[in-house]
């Protein structure tokens, strides 16, 4: 507010924005609008959208519930092998999603590492909606962990120390100080995780397969349509984009904006 940015910053920033947005514009221009509504309201598309939203929400929740603790442990403690762990946590990002799906099969599949155990427990995940969530969590969690950890480090632990001297237990400190302090970073991470879950395809189709209403999420539907009818794929992608803008817009803008209004 009070500080001006260097002018030259606007050039690369504008370039970056243009580069990210132009392909969207090109996509919108290619959409076959007369057929659009019919395409995106077909039962398979509706099922896929609904499934995507449900699984995306659940995955994001799981990512937050598991990922925030992991990020906190990585940012706030020191233990041997921590450096290695921090790199390893990133790997689902690097592995092509399809290979990630294979790895998940090797682990949780019928003949996988834990397959026997799971079978004994009567749990069968393959080809189920649970598998979709598992695939999404696997690919999306690193985003949440990494950006939350960065925010935790940037914020430092001064306020946590103060809270402890006021008699707050570690749990209270975590809930009432740590989390609110890193809220902007955590929200960014959550949004990243949600976006990545929503767009997830490779690991899902490999690990969970694709069946309308059960495992065929919107990206999978898009892939299938693409073979038949690229226009339909683009139209469906646009729906995905719209949904994402809506969800992200509603959940992300407001808290951040609210925070902004409070003077720093």
């Amino acid at each position: 507010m009070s500080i001006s940015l260097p002018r030259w910053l606007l050039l690369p920033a504008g370039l970056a924005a243009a580069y990210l947005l132009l392909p969207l514009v090109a996509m919108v221009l290619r959409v076959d609008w007369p057929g659009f509504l019919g395409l995106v309201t077909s039962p398979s598309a509706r099922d896929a959208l609904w499934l995507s939203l449900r699984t995306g929400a659940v995955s994001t929740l799981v990512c937050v519930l598991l990922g925030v603790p992991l990020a906190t442990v990585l940012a706030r403690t020191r233990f041997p092998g921590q450096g290695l762990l921090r790199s390893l946590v990133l790997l689902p990002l690097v592995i092509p999603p399809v290979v990630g799906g294979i790895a998940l099969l090797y682990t949780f599949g019928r003949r996988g590492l834990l397959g026997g155990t799971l079978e004994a427990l009567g749990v069968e995940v393959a080809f189920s909606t649970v598998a979709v969530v598992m695939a999404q969590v696997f690919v999306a969690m690193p985003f949440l962990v990494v950006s939350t950890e960065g925010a935790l480090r940037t914020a430092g632990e001064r306020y946590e120390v103060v809270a402890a001297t006021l008699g707050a237990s570690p749990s209270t400190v975590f809930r009432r100080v740590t989390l609110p302090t890193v809220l902007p970073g955590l929200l960014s991470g959550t949004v990243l995780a949600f976006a990545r879950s929503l767009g997830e395809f490779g690991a899902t189709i490999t690990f969970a397969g694709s069946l309308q209403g059960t495992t065929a999420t919107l990206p999978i539907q898009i892939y299938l349509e693409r073979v038949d009818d690229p226009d339909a794929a683009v139209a469906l992608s646009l729906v995905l984009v719209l949904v994402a803008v809506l969800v992200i817009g509603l959940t992300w803008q407001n808290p951040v904006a609210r925070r902004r209004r409070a003077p720093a």
Partner: protein
Amino acid sequence: MTGLDLVARIPERDVDLTLGVPAGRTLALLGPNGAGKSTALAVAAGLLRSPACRVGVGGRRLDDVPTHHRGVAMLSQDPLLFPHLSVLDNVAFAPRAQGVRRSAARAAAWRWLDEVGVSGLAQRRPGALSGGQSQRVAIARALAAEPEVLLLDEPMAALDVSVTPALRQLLRRVLAERTVLLVTHDALDAVLLADRVAVIEHGRVVEEGPTQQVLERPRSRFAARIAGLNLITGRWHGGALEGHGLRVQGVTDGLALAEGSPAVAVFAPSAVSVFGNDPGGSPRNAWPVVVTDLEPREDRVRVRADTRLGEESLAADVTPAAVADLGLEPGVRVRFAVKATEVTVHPAGPDPEPPASR
């Protein structure tokens, strides 16, 4: 209530201190910047740990007890109010953390905010406070924790002079019931709030003792710079303090003193004039004394003298010229005169006598 025993040994900071605060007493830490005062507090709070450090409260060793279980609350040098909580919730934080219900915690927070005079700001965010307002909220937040042991790092910093006396009284009242380690740069804080004083220089305790003794007769260079005060304890009778056979007139800084209540009169040696015989004039206090000692210091001479009753030792700072004029030397009988407006009389708590543990 419980005493505090502390060994703070942090070689990286060249700090090696051993301090003890008897249960329910207040120890003031004085010392130059970087002496190690905040370090001592950090060790007591469990924020700084090292195998060479020892912290005990009420005989219980706390070395391995996490900060939040120590029953120790700390006011740090930087207010560090939680930016995401309102002022009220900042102050209610400690009661809430201790399991008090929201409404009760808020009520307590309102009370404390009122005590430090900022209840009008309860709904603000800390980001919208001035420096002194933040400091007051931080004081309220620390006091609201109602800990057994309280660590205060320069609580009066950033406060304007118009609130300092009232806040001192508030602290006096609150600290009376707690075991307190108080860092301050102001001798008056030590006089009014602390039972004992420790002077720290270069990470070592260079002087430690009852407040009156250290401030009246400082042995360390630093204490000498800030202190050298005359303190007379007694009781408030008929608009003056009576004690040790002296009647002392003074001003009370607007604070009410009950008849017969314990009090302490404070005045600087520089405020004491020396006369050969009763001077008359405006000074309300003029006591016959016997010079016991002359200490030249820089451009003045500190004259020490005992009251006739031999009970109370007082000091006066005069110029070398005055020493010559009046022929001052040990054994000479003179009068020490102090204007009443130079003497402040403060309430002295329920027990003006040194406790047995001293």
